[in-house]
């Protein structure tokens, strides 16, 4: 089976992917809502900025994170000065890198489902005495569930596979930032690393397949509840 170092990489990967997803979901829903429902000057630019990590090379994203959040970065300096938070060479930094890279994908998935929510239902809810916030939580959010689910899975998958931004921003530190992709990368440059790389590859495939099956199951349940089947 796996060696302790490999287990560490798997655990670290799951941990990073989990927290990256958890932290990016609420802002993802908010940004999706803004892009789907609000019209304001500069909306196009905002949309572009959100999607930038998707089209930039990952190494560039990592380097930008370093410039912004590194120890001497624009925000990183104050982050350290005021809160004592250091992101580089840390698991938290790896989580940030994974979250930033997967964010546009999460937003897109949620936004698609939000676009599909019938605004007539929201109007109906308001005439029945529900405030805007009440309508969001009682009508809009439940009807967005398929999109939130697929957003979550896309976020998890993309965070599990994140490589370029992570290695550029927080480097490849065993037990701290060395997730599965980084561990495989390291293994391929070691003389006897082929077995490690192969085992971690199998773990990756199992994780991805499991996530897909789970998604399929959950999606079906949600659709039944929403009356779409």
């Amino acid at each position, binding site marked *: 089976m796996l060696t302790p170092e490999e287990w560490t990489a798997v655990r670290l990967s799951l941990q990073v992917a989990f927290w990256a997803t958890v932290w990016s979901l609420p802002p993802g829903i908010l940004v999706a809502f803004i892009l789907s429902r609000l019209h304001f000057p500069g909306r196009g630019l905002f949309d572009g900025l959100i999607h930038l990590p998707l089209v930039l090379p990952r190494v560039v994203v990592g380097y930008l994170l370093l410039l912004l959040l590194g120890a001497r970065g624009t925000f990183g300096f104050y982050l350290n000065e005021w809160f004592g938070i250091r992101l580089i060479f840390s698991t938290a930094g790896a989580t940030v890198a994974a979250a930033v890279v997967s964010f546009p994908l999460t937003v897109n998935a949620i936004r698609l489902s939000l676009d599909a929510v*019938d605004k*007539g239902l929201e109007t109906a809810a308001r*005439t*029945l*005495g*529900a405030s805007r916030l009440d309508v969001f939580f009682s009508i809009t959010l439940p009807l967005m569930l398929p999109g939130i689910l697929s957003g979550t899975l896309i976020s998890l998958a993309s965070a599990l596979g994140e490589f370029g931004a992570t290695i550029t921003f927080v480097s490849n530190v065993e037990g701290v930032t060395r997730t599965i992709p980084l561990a495989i990368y390291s293994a391929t440059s070691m003389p006897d690393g082929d077995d490690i790389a192969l085992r971690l590859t199998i773990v990756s495939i199992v994780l991805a397949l499991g996530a897909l099956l789970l998604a399929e199951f959950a999606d079906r349940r949600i659709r039944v509840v929403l*009356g779409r089947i």
Partner: protein
Amino acid sequence: MIEIDVALTRSTSFKLEARFTAPDRGVTALFGRSGAGKSTIIYMVAGTVRPDRGRIQIGDAVFFDAATRTELPMEQRRVGYVFQDSRLFPHMKVETNLRYGERRAKEKRISFDAVVGMLGIGHLLSRRPHTLSGGERQRVAIGRALLAQPRLLLMDEPLAALDEQRKAEILPYLERLRDELKLPILYVSHSLEEVLRLSDMIVAMADGGVVAAGSVSQVMSRPEMLPIVGRFDLGTILDCTVKAHDPDFALSTLAFADGELRVPLVDLPLGTPARARIRSRDVALSLSRPMDVSVTNRLAGTVADIRREEGPYADVGVDLGHAVLRSLVTKESVARLALEPGMPVWVMIKAVAVDSRSPLFDAPAPGATLPEPANPPKVSPPQTPSLRLVGADTPSRGNG
């Protein structure tokens, strides 16, 4: 009192300027062709469209007043809005849908059990909206609107998306609603049949303005209604009561202010109000008392006015004492009989003509059942106690 005085300019092609008042009880129909602005009025009352200027007041509640910059938020207006497409929440069961507005209402005058009983939806409570038929869905939507404890009901073509059979299924429920609730109902429709059957008052609209407003019998004989209902549907509405039945000849006698009408047997108990619709084209005139003619109904009156219209038509109003009956004849007949306002005339109405066109009598008789392909619901008006308006201090009761 419902007071509406609104103006809205959407584009060069759509301008709305409407002003009318409606009573606190009964059904006021907003009637007109599509694009006349009927629905826009409803949107403004509900709060989804803001008028450019004007005022909307329902009872003591000012919903909108441009002069004082008052605009009540949608959720505080308490309008029970029934949409054409029901708009039930797909992720909730029927019962949760019904209780959505009820849970958010402060006072609970209309009880859950009463609404469920009145609409006959007790057997649907645990179902999901997508498993319901169109008619069932619309009944649940009406119940949901009622349970939000509204101060008025807004119904925007609630039957338009349904086929004839479903319409017939729902109409009796709407009549119960009208008769048993002390709620004003604004009812948008382009169907003359529905309007004549349900409404007490008509606000006729065309091109974003009010063409005529008043009681059904007043409005329907107005010349302004011609473009809205068309020449062959224009006529007189007489509010009658059922006076006698003659089973031998299968005829009924309806009494109205100026006399009686014999019509084909009406399946309504004696003493019940009935609305007789007499199309102008079914009314003939005679200078002398018609003796040996087959026409059953002969009434004496005086010519009130003569409107000479395009083509061969002349629309003659005959004053019967209280009601004015309209008769569509040819200009040639007017000339031949030398008709003038003030002349005494006899009007002749074939009994058969009153019957077949009168929407009131097309209704399924009470107790009749209609075939229903799936999940046969009770079509006859349900045998439940009439809707109770419980006191505000009475807590709402459990599920049905």
